[in-house]
């Protein structure tokens, strides 16, 4: 019925996801408006402009042909590896942690697009891999190189959070690609055994402190524990209905640090309560459900791995951020997409949406035989 009134090109777009995401972003705007003491500036208005701009980019991405994705998968990956090496070199010369490249006209952080690029490169890799090799040990050396090189380069910056996020995105694709389950179980067990060693040898002092703080935030009330404690106070004092729009004392009186970025969820929860929290969770779970459905219906192995990997990347953002603000994960600088203020994370996530939309288009246009 709709198709008769609305042009088909528009009707075909996945509005069942775009509309909830728009509402989620609107809630984000409301939170940022309140955090700025009832002002559109400096965050709320720009947050919406970012969203709309990135939505256009998502639409453009969704129109790109599958062959183009395949064609650029490795060149982009290699270019980003080169950029990461450059960042590490500059960092080792200057000392301290270095995450950005100055391109003259903009500051470029190569680790952010790497989150997308690793998924794309791995999807292409498994697509071109003969099925029989998938469960052979010979797949491991090239796979290891693909995943570990960018992860180690990012962790060297040092940026543990992003490195982990790239690795998890990559592993999700590897897992979906069908490698033997016992490898994952084995790696999981080995990882569990290795964790304590890594904790005491590989981590930086401040990273170790953050994990210790997570286990006992009351120990360090004015240091890193302060973030977690204040965030829990904000969420906990909101109750079911919240304190009401514009009434969040934790954020307004500056007790909550990073109230508009990493801890925006706590700012939201203080004013909108559990009700707001359930809405946010519902939208995210709906997006994941959609993403996985798209990947299952995808016309070929490349597209389904691509969509699944993108979904997982969004999931990782959400999970780490929300676990952190509720005191279940250490404090790492990962924002909550669509709620937190900040362009680059939103761009990454909207690009993920755009890629999933592209896969959605491909599956509608033709069946698996076209590949």
């Amino acid at each position: 019925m709709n198709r008769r009134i609305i042009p088909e090109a528009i009707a075909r777009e996945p509005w069942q996801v775009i509309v909830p995401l728009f509402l989620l972003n609107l809630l984000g705007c409301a939170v940022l408006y309140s955090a700025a003491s009832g002002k559109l500036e400096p965050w709320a208005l720009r947050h919406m402009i970012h969203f709309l701009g990135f939505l256009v980019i998502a639409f453009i991405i969704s129109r790109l042909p599958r062959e183009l994705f395949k064609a650029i998968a490795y060149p982009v990956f290699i270019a980003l590896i080169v950029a990461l090496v450059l960042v590490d070199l500059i960092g080792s010369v200057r000392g301290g942690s270095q995450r950005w490249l100055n391109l003259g006209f903009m500051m470029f952080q190569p680790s952010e697009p790497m989150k997308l690029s690793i998924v794309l490169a791995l999807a292409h890799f498994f697509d071109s891999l003969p099925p029989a090799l998938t469960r052979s040990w010979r797949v491991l050396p090239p796979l290891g190189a693909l995943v570990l090189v960018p992860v180690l380069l990012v962790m060297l910056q040092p940026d543990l959070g992003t490195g982990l996020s790239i690795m998890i995105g990559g592993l999700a694709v590897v897992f979906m690609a069908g490698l033997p389950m016992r490898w994952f179980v084995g790696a999981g067990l080995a990882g569990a055994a290795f964790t304590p060693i890594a904790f005491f040898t590989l981590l930086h002092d401040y990273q170790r402190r953050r994990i210790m703080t997570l286990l006992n935030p009351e120990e360090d009330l004015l240091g890193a524990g302060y973030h977690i404690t204040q965030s829990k106070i904000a969420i906990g004092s909101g109750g079911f209905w919240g304190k009401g729009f514009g009434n969040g004392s934790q954020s307004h009186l500056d007790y909550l640090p990073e109230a508009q970025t990493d801890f925006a969820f706590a700012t939201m929860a203080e004013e909108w309560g559990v009700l707001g929290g359930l809405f946010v969770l519902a939208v995210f779970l709906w997006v994941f459900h959609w993403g996985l459905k798209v990947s299952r219906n995808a016309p070929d192995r490349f597209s389904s791995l691509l969509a699944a990997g993108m979904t997982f990347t969004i999931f990782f953002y959400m999970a780490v951020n929300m676990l952190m603000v509720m005191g279940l994960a250490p404090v790492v600088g990962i924002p909550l997409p669509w709620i937190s203020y900040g362009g680059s994370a939103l761009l990454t996530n909207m690009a993920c949406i755009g890629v999933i939309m592209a896969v959605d288009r491909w599956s509608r246009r033709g069946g698996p035989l076209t590949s």
Partner: protein
Amino acid sequence: MLGGNKHVSSGTLKNSFERRSVLIGGLQTAVGVLLAARMGWIALVDNEKYELASESNRVNLTLIPPRRGAILDRNNVPLASNRMEYRIDIVPERLVDPEGTIAKLGTLLGMDEVALRDLSDKLEKAHGFQPLGVASGVPPEVYDKVLVRLPEMPGVMAAQGFTRWYPTGPSVGHLLGYVGPATAEDFKAERNPLLVTPGFKLGKDGLEKQFEAQLRGIPGARRAEVTASGKIVRDLEMRDDIPGAPLQLTINGPLQDYAARRLGLESGSVVVMDCLTGDILAMASMPSFDPNSFADGIGRIEWKMLSDDDHVPLRNKVLRGLYPPGSTVKPAVAMAFLEAGLDPNASVNCGGGLRVGNRVFGCWNRRGHGSVNMAKAIYQSCDVYFYHFAQKIGMDPIAAMCRRLGLGEKYDLPVTAQHYGTVPDPAWKQKKYNKPWAVFDTVNATIGQGYMLVNPLQQAVMAARIASGKLLQPRLLMNQKVPDAPSMGFSQEHLDYVHKAMSDVVNGPGTAGRARLPIPDVLMAGKTGTAQVVSLSVSDGKSGPWKYRDHGHFIAYAPFDNPRYACAVVVEHGGGSGSAYPIARDVMTFLYDPAKALEVLHGMEAGWGGTPQQRMAARYRSYSAQYGATAPKPADEAEIQRRSEGPDPAAQAPRSAVTEAAAPRPEPDAAPPAPAPTASPSAPAGEAPQP
């Protein structure tokens, strides 16, 4: 799972993908449920706990230091009150950039190098919880400037509050003490959050310390909404403080101020007592400190000034100064003689000395006094008379009389420390030095030398008891019932005799003719005393180094025939009683004719370089110019306490037994001059006492 690698096809991979995507979907849902459950736990189950935490974040309860109870004189004139002012404090714990903040504050407040140095000294010693006073009495326009820039200086607090104000400054320093911020020790002793509230001060010495509980009051409180950085957003609720109860003293405020200022450049004390009630009307010890400038702690320059001063400005000499009383004990000794049945007309011939056995004890007047009866022995202060009859009557009745009249006694007064000295007798000496009493000990004691040590308050009590014939007790607090002083049990005849002789000291052919009051119909009676500090071989006591000069004493009361006021003056190293009695004369004059007395004082102060405050300010300026910030750091409170309560270098008891008779020192005005009708406002140097 399929067994071998060889059977893997794109179909099996597709199947595996389907299964694993369900697994991933399940993982995502599980995380979603976990998050929802966690959020429900925090926000619903633990809601109350976090709501409380959020409220205690948001709302800040600040204590408002209570206004301290005023200290009033007998006529309700405030000796210590509170003054509204603007003040700046810092809380060291909250300072983000201590050096930058102090530099910024220094510019805003216009602090000089010395003040900045004092501030960083305090900061060094500070404990996290303890707020530090940076400046008080800040002018409103400067205060506004600081207020505007508070957000860029975390840890700095600006507030309006009350500060202790002593209108007469140094004149009441020793009497009242001073107030200051609580130390870590104070806080350990009394875990009261009020102690670490900026602007709160507690009593550190004197009556301020003694009556801390009464004067403190109950703090007010303010509930305010504050940001994480401590900025107040708005007030929610206010509770006013309950001011401390006032404390009324028997002190006569203007008299206290006059007495303190009249001591001038000397180191000494003045005590004035009411002969009817025992009320202490004045209790001045100079030089002193200005309690107003101690409120925010003692700075380097102030400390250097206090340490350099050999006149020990930190010690209350009225209560903690011990001196040989010299001839001022002679009326008491005379009373002992009379009580022992000696006929006052019994005479000795004074030829300048008394031979006992093979030794000769000299009279201060080497030419001799001729025939001396008791009256002449008092007004001429003849030593030979007292040597002679003391040998006959013995030491025990004399010591007993001295004690009855209040020497060696510790009074029931609300003061922090009281040194009460010695009235020696044979038993005492045996116990203390394990040596028998010797002839020269009696000789020394009868002229107030040797082991005998008294404080100025005891001398005033002695004067008042002799004057009134009543067992007066010194009284400092006005709110007590006036005790009905019992009679001393002296015969009126004896009293009249001694009173007449003491009047002749001033108004007759005595040793203090120039002490006569310039008030018609009011005659002052008194007794001079000159106490040697070192033996004659070291110094003649009149010239030479200040610390070798004799102490000057004078006890007095007026009017002589109807005693109303008693007074004792001690001038450390004043060179003799001539330094003391003009002060007693002017202080007594003030009681009857303040205008006349003030005129004299103003003339003198012009010569001394102004009032004590003006002189201290000038001294501060010259010290500041000379030492700048290089003066040594001030000592801690315990050291200041030690210095104020420790032994007075000017008044030390002999460490070992005395082996020699003291050479009595000449009394001034020995040749009776024509009594001056009015006091001449001359500088103390002009009154250099030589017969």
